Each structure stands twice: as C-alpha cells, then as structure tokens.
C-alpha cells in the first residue's frame, strides 16, 4: 500500500512541493527566531520602534534638511534620497555617454570606431570599485579651493569639492517641478500604451503629447518664479571668497567620484548594448530608405536609431537595474548612500534584522519599480504586430 502511494505521480508531486516550500519557510523562520533570541540576549528589543528615536549623528551629504536630533526614519530617508539621486544622475549620464560610444562604434569611420572600442575595453575590463577609488583619489588630490581650477568661470574644481552654478530657487519648488515632469512623462506613456486610447488617431496623440510637455515648461517657469529667493539673481555662480567658494552648488568629491565612475563604467556596457542593437537591424530598412532618396542622416535619425532603441530596451532594463545596484559602492569612498546610512544605523542602534529588512525592502522597491516603468515604456514603443524574421 505504502509503495503504491509513493509510485503515484500525483502524490509524489504534492509531497515534493510541500517539502520544498516547507523547507524554505522553515529556514526563514529559524533564522528569524534565532536572530531575535540572540539580539534579545544583548538587550535589544526587536520591532520598528527605534525609527522614532533621534540618531545623534550627522550625515555628510543630504538633499533635505537634516540635523543630529532627527529620528532614524529621517536619516534612512536621507540615505534613500541620496542613493536615488546618485542612481538617477549616473544612469542618465551613462545613457548619454553610452549612446555616443555605441554610435561611434557603428559610425563607419574607422578612427571613431577605434576610439569607441578603446573606451569600452579600458573601462569595462577594470572593476568599478577600482575606478571609483581612482577618481576619488584624483579628485581629492586637486588643489585646495584657494588655487582651484576654474573652467570658464562657471565651474570650479578643487580638492574640497566641485562647484557648479545653481538656481536661487527654493528646494520645494525644484522638487515640485521634477514631480510635474515625471507626471507629464507618465501621462505620455499612459497615452501611448493604454488600450483606452487605441482608437485615438496618431495625430491627436502627438498634439496631446506636445501640449503636455509645453504645459510642463510653463508650469516650471511659474514654479521657479514663485520659489525664487528674493533679492538674488536667478542664476547663482560660485565665486571665491576667503579660503573657500561661496554660492553655487558644492558637489563633494565622494559624490562626484561615484557619479563619474558609475557613468563611465555604465557607458562602456551601454555602448556595447547599443552597438549590438544597431547590428541587429536588418539591412532592408536602410536600403528602403536609400531607395526612397532619404539622406544618410535622415535614415539614421528616423529609421536606424528608433529601431535600435526598440531593439535594446529589454536588455537596457536589466543593465539599469544592475547599474542602480552598483550605487552601493558609495560607502567605499564615504558617500552617505542608503547602504552606508543603514550600516551606521546598525552600528549605532543594534537593530540589525529590522535595518537589513529596510535595506532590502528599499532596493526591492526601487528595482522593481524601475523594471516596471521600463517595461511599460517597452510596451508603449515596441514594434506592433508580427515581425518578419530574416
């Protein structure tokens, strides 16, 4: 009887599944139980109550107001924003630079191909952490502010940071403008992908897209006007005063080293992806463009580039998630990113399990939403219908 049950496929399958899922659940459960016990033995109460306690330590770089009396949740939020900021800036720069490198590699000009290939090989074959260390060492070895390097009177480089021109506008208004931009882009995306607009003609969609973007520009101007700081010029150039620069935006070397490192490393990878995208386009579309009398430039901007972007977007999505995760190396040069704030918090509060959970939750949230948004973009622009394979 026993044997016959074991030989029955249904029973065996069910048992296997229960065993597998059970084993995983049991492992997680044991870890949590043992962890709690160990922590309680050290006098640390589990739970998220500690988030309301004030931290008592300062953070070197923050996009929002933060003081040592602020609670843990605010410190974590500062770290999260820093990571999001670093990731957003680096990903954008990496994309632009990668696009240039990728285009150079398919340009047909042998010299441009050589430069593009050298760029990719040099920066892709050396670990990112080493590159960030290198840029950081280079940036901190710059002369002190008093004899800093002046680039056209707009940007100043010095060992204590890089100074960029800024706008005399309150932070809230800049934040609102960014939110408005994201909302406008989401609107465009929705318009392109939602089935609700399947019957709307392409011309109407284009008109609506344009008005959304024009509306955003207008709104931004209004917001900046409201939020400008009185009695100051709108543009804020850094200038040397005493031993340091005044005004402008100071980018600390830790942040700049991370941005430069991640952008260049990412660009080397993205450049290769873009090149593969161009190579994946059939020759036929180019020939059809030539036969219609389009110029090489028109064929490139209207046909090859849009097709290449569509071809690489799924690969790029993975690359973006991967690059975003690499922002954690900020801790190596002392940039106050999410991971660094979490590890300081662990040291200071001892709430190890909760903080690790928050850390993982934060990255899962960002990466899943990044992937979700890019997949929606992909749905919106991917080629419709069945494609001929040649």
């Amino acid at each position, binding site marked *: 009887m026993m044997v016959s049950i074991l030989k029955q496929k249904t029973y065996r399958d069910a048992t296997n599944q229960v065993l597998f899922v059970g084993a995983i659940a049991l492992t997680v459960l044991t870890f949590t139980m043992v962890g709690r016990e160990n922590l309680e033995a050290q006098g640390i109460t589990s739970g998220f109550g500690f988030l309301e306690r004030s931290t008592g330590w300062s953070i070197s770089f923050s996009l929002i107001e933060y003081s040592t009396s602020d609670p843990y949740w605010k410190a974590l939020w500062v770290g999260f924003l820093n990571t999001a900021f670093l990731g957003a800036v680096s990903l954008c720069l990496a994309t632009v630079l990668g696009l240039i490198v990728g285009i150079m590699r398919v340009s047909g000009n042998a010299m441009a191909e050589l430069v593009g290939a050298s760029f990719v090989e040099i920066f892709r074959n050396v670990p990112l952490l080493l590159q960030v260390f290198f840029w950081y060492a280079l940036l901190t070895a710059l002369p002190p502010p008093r004899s800093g390097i002046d680039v056209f009177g707009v940007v100043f480089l010095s060992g204590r940071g890089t100074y960029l021109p800024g706008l005399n506008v309150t932070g809230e208004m800049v934040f609102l403008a960014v939110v408005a931009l994201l909302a406008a882009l989401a609107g465009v995306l929705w318009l392109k992908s939602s089935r609700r607009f399947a019957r709307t003609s*392409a011309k109407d969609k284009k008109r609506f897209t344009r008005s959304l973007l024009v509306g955003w520009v207008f709104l931004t101007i209004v917001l900046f006007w409201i939020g400008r700081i009185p009695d100051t010029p709108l543009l804020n150039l850094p200038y040397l005063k005493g031993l340091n620069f005044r005004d402008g935006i100071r980018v600390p070397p830790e942040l700049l080293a991370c941005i430069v490192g991640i952008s260049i490393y990412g660009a080397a990878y993205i450049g290769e992806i873009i090149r593969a995208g161009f190579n994946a386009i059939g020759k036929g579309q180019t*020939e059809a463009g030539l*036969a*219609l009398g389009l110029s090489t430039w028109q064929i490139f901007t209207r046909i090859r580039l849009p*097709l290449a972007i569509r071809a690489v977007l799924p690969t790029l999505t993975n690359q973006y998630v991967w690059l975003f995760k690499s922002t954690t190396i900020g801790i190596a040069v002392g940039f106050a990113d999410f991971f660094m704030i979490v590890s300081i918090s662990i040291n200071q509060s001892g709430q190890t399990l909760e903080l690790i959970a928050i850390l993982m939750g934060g990255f899962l949230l960002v990466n899943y939403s990044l992937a979700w948004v890019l997949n929606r973009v992909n749905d919106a622009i991917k080629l*419709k*219908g069945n*494609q001929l394979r040649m």
Partner: protein
Amino acid sequence: MSDLSHAVRISRMEKFYGAFHALKDINLEVGKGERVVICGPSGSGKSTLIRCINKLENHQSGSINVLGTELDDNLDNIDEIRRETGMVFQHFNLFPHMTILENCTLAPRLVRKQSQPDAEEIAMEYLTKVKIPDQAEKFPGQLSGGQQQRVAIARALCMKPEIMLFDEPTSALDPEMISEVLDVMIALANEGMTMICVTHEMGFARQVADRVVFMADGQVIEEAPPSEFFDRPRHDRTRAFLNQILGH
C-alpha cells in the same frame, strides 16, 4: 529630359564582389513607358543588376544612365536618380516603427518637402489605389504579407517616380497572396508606368511585359518580346530554364 527616348541605358557595365565577377558586360536599354521583366536562375545576377540602377550596389566599370542622369560618384546625381525611381523589395522593408500612413509620407515630406496634409492626401490616394485605405493607421507588423507588399508599392509611388523597380516582389509571399500584388502591378502597367521587374511570375511576364530579359551567370543571354521568348526561345539555357519553371 522629356524628349529622351530611354528611361534607363546601361552599357558595358561590370560588377565585382571582391574577386567574384557578378555582372559581365551588361548592355540594356529600357524605353520610357516600357515594361521589362528580368528572369533567370537564382544567382544569375538579376537582383544585383536591378539594385545597380539606383546604386544600392556599386558597379565598377561601364555606364548607367537613368533619365539622362549619369550614375557616377556624384552624390547629387545619386540623390536625383533615387528620387525618380521607386523600388519594391522582396521582403517589403517597411519601417516597422511607423504606421502605414507615416511609412508613405516620410520620404515625400523629407525629400520632396511636401507639407504633412499634402503628403497624407497623396498617400491616401495611393493607398486607395492599392485597395487598403482602411489600414492607414495600423503598423506593418499587423498586416498580412500581401498587404505589406501593396503598402510598399504605394510608398514607392508616393514619391511620384518615373520608373518603378521591382526586386522579386512576390517571392516572399504565401501563394494565396501573390495575385493581389500582381493585380496592383498589372494596373500600374496599364497606366503606362515604366517598370523593370525581376520576377519568376511567367504569367505576369506574358501578360504585361513588352520585353523579357533572360540572365544566367551574370550575363544577358537572351532578350525578346514575351510571345517570342516563351514560344521560340533561341538558347539552350533559356529552354532548360523555361522547362524547369513551366514544365510541371
């Protein structure tokens, strides 16, 4: 230009791929309003020949003259000839990221500098002519092969070309879709368009061609009016080819 007697005149043209001699001493003249069908076994160079006429392929020596313009290294001449010739490809080569209408209006707007409403009006006219005006807002991937090829013909016609080049337009189609494309081509022929077609559709050749050119191994073996070509072929190779293609 209008008093020219020929649309295309090719003389003593040679073409190499590396060391491979693809086209040997081609001499061919196509008159205005003439319909010429080029046929031959695969690898005979017929596609290469037609692609040389709008310089998708470079020839190495000899001359090609299209509507009085000499095809040489001069970029202006190449642009001029590509404007005046339309081409239809075996694999359609529609732009998959643009709607049917955008496919048809892109080149008129960019090359002929037409305004968008004008270009769309002309495009709808030709889409009506190839019997798919109702598909204008769709994307190429959503259409059948036969429909796509008809769009490709309309797209070429929107440039108001003097000459139409067809490079095996029905070879990639399922059998039941071939006739809808051939019907459009026959209608076009009846309007007096100058056409050079590379095709294996011998029925089409018999019906509309003024002349059939038979090629093999990169050479023109025989050229004759269809009645003569099909009923009294002069060369053995032509006979062998016709037996193979019509024999069973």
